[in-house]
């Protein structure tokens, strides 16, 4: 594992843009192309939104840590919060098949995280908190 870069913010939704800038900058610096940077930014935004809205249930004084690093050829984003334990299996899969009028709205955030990243892992621990670790494979070798 290489150098880790971390940003720590309170669980206010207004901090999402600062997180997006941080992750986009780090992803671009590690050689991800423009499309990949956008995808990493979106997956991170969705994960952090889940932390703020669901783990902290809208409380704005929680802690959200976003850490980026390179592991082999993967750009890795680790998001940590200390809110309510989160089980992704309890989130219904989004309805992408029914006609628009009949669609249930929900589950899109986790759907995007899984679609946009090469891997997404969730864990929950009383001490380490809730963690989401997402990986994006670089298309070609680049220096950090």
């Amino acid at each position, binding site marked *: 594992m290489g150098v880790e870069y971390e940003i720590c913010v309170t669980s206010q939704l207004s901090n999402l*843009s600062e997180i997006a800038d941080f992750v986009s900058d780090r992803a671009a610096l590690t050689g991800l192309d423009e499309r990949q940077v956008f995808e990493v930014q979106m997956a991170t935004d969705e994960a952090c939104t889940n932390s703020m809205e669901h783990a902290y249930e809208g409380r704005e004084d929680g802690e959200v840590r976003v850490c980026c690093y390179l592991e082999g050829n993967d750009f890795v984003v680790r998001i940590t919060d200390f809110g309510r334990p989160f089980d992704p299996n309890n989130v219904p899969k989004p309805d992408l098949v029914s006609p628009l009028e009949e669609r249930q*709205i929900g589950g899109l955030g986790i759907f995007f995280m899984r679609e946009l990243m090469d891997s997404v892992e969730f864990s929950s621990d009383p001490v380490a908190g809730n963690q989401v670790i997402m990986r994006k494979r670089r298309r070609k070798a680049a220096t950090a």
Partner: protein
Amino acid sequence: MNGAQENGQGFALTLSGRIDASNAPKLEQDLLALHAQHPDTLIIDLSDVTYISSSGLRVLLMAHRRQQHSGGQLFLRNPAPKIMHIMTLCGFDQVFAFL
């Protein structure tokens, strides 16, 4: 919301910048108010939108439903390729009408 104006095709609303969970509720309120005034044709111009999260997409979907329920239509105009990429991933490209 950054601007709204009537044109020959309907009432057009121009959005810009990021649409995420922090400002999606405000957008929802703005679109609710616009729907009350313009239940027929509403156009949302996305040319200057740099990012939209699932929260923003949900707001657009709700607006689409409201317009349809009142017998009107919602059109999306000029999404950037990366925004269109996101809409295609979740199938919204098939359910929204684009100008």
